[in-house]
């Protein structure tokens, strides 16, 4: 495959907010002393009066966002996934989710690829937490193109949205000229008949690479990008279960509660097939370069290939 340009989706987030600020005058951005890291500083530079720093107080920031949304503004509350979904969980649930307020949560530095900061900052539980809140839309974009599209889709969606962004630069494989993003609609990237690899976030590109390699080994793998974890595109997932009879999920998140769990829930009710989950196996991460950690934790095309081969052999 040709070398693709890489970009971290947190940069896509900051740039998209800045690009959309003129079009959506009700758009405000909140931060908790991380405007540099979450890249909302890009928005702040262009719209200083519409950027509110709440200080290192994520719980309060979520409440501020709720209050602003109640008056008709569209606030993007930004922090690291660990603090946005983790520390502020109960505020997100009670002050945003329960009254279904129009708050968007931009959570950067998600997953193990945070790298050197280590386990305290590697949030592998955010999708699980956010997915349990009724009415919460949960989006995990795979690249720059999708991340930008997700930001605008979130603005246009009436209700709370959680969007997950990464710190690590990842290949831009979706063509911005033709890519269409729709909340809740998965994207089938290639067809296949032996197995379906369902991936989300930075694992989508790994899944595409894995499918290429599997083809050389005579295995026909379908690849589906699930950018919206909730509401899940059950129709596409169940169709894949029926037509390929085997699913391997891949996510940079705990195997508990995230994409793998959502897929299991969908297929076990409507078309039970074997589902093998690739993700962080109920352990904490640790410090190290992001690329090395992804390999170590099995979040790689190599591990997808090996997992698929084993599962297909057992089919």
């Amino acid at each position: 495959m040709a070398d693709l340009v890489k970009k971290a989706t947190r940069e896509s987030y900051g740039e998209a907010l800045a690009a959309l600020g003129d079009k959506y005058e009700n758009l405000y951005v909140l931060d908790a002393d991380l405007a540099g890291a979450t890249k909302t500083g890009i928005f702040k530079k262009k719209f200083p009066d519409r950027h509110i720093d709440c200080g290192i107080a994520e719980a309060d920031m979520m409440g501020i966002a709720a209050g602003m949304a109640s008056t008709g503004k569209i606030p993007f509350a930004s922090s690291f996934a660990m603090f946005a979904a983790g520390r502020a969980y109960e505020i997100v649930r009670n002050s945003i989710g329960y009254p279904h307020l129009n708050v968007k949560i931009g959570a950067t530095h998600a997953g193990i690829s945070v790298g050197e900061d280590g386990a305290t900052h590697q949030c592998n539980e955010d999708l699980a937490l956010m997915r349990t809140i009724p009415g919460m839309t949960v989006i995990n974009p795979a690249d720059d193109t999708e991340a930008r599209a997700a930001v605008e889709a979130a603005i246009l969606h009436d209700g709370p949205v959680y969007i997950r962004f990464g710190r690590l630069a990842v290949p831009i494989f979706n063509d911005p000229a033709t890519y269409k993003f729709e909340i809740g609609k998965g994207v089938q990237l290639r067809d296949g008949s032996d197995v379906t690899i369902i991936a989300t976030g930075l694992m989508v590109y790994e899944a595409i690479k894995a499918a290429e390699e599997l083809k050389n080994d005579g295995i026909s793998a379908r690849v589906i990008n699930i950018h919206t974890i909730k509401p899940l595109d059950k129709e596409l997932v169940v169709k894949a279960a029926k037509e390929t009879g085997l699913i391997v999920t891949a996510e940079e998140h705990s195997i508990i509660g995230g994409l793998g769990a959502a897929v299991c829930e969908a297929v076990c009710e409507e078309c039970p097939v074997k589902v093998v989950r690739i993700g962080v196996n109920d352990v904490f991460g640790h410090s190290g370069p992001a690329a090395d950690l992804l390999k170590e934790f099995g979040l790689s095309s190599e591990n997808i290939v090996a997992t698929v081969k084993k599962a297909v052999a057992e089919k």
Partner: protein
Amino acid sequence: MDELLKKQLQITACKVRMGIIEGVYNAKSGHPGGSLSIADTLTYLYFAKLHVYPDNPKLPDRDRFVLSKGHTAPALYSVLAHRGFFPVEELKTLRHIGARLQGHPDMKHIPGVDMTTGSLGQGISAACGMALSAKLSGDTYNVYAVLGDGELEEGQVWEAAMFAAHYKLDNLVAVVDNNGLQIDGKISDVCSPYPIDEKFKAFGWHVVTMDAHDFDSIEKAFNEAETIVNQPTVIIQTSVKGKGVSYMENQVSWHGSAPNTEQYEQAMSELKAQLKELEG
């Protein structure tokens, strides 16, 4: 305060208290003590201070009210009902299956409720967000929030306090209902938030104190708050938990329990006597 207005407020507050008892009795659960301690303050706000529109509850230029101590919803519901947001009779449906009047304030379904609250420490943040929103848009409405004194033990309150002072939210008035009691006992015994006034001063707030059961004092405090610029105001009100029902006054056991039929009848009879005296 004008004597006629004072008399009217006293009468209304007494009816509001009856509504609280009615609601909690019919729910067979709820929080009467802290509801009764804020009955006069809420009556003053909704009948003499706030610009609100019962026929059009969501009008954008209305003043906002956030009951950060959301468990005292019976007081808010009773005031809203008496102000005409929904029928007073509906208070009897408090906490019932299928009722709008949830155990804690629900902005999605109850007319006049500006913020969903109940989990302590969160309402004040939302109130800050509303006040900031007005500043950002040049809107002139004010935001009022009522907190419990025990609620001050929540760290989020102080995050919000820091934020409000930093952003000079002079359109925000917080009231701390200092009745001195929380579920586990006296606030000074459980995990003391005292000195409340010095803490808020240190956080950059203008501090006012008032007697929560004296409308002259209440009016004076809220009028003073209106004159303060460039900083938020906190009104620390000295109140009596359970105020107006003799056997509930200053009794921690009435924080979160409902009267039985005999107790209900006694409470209503006391409040009716108070009302009769006021109406003279």
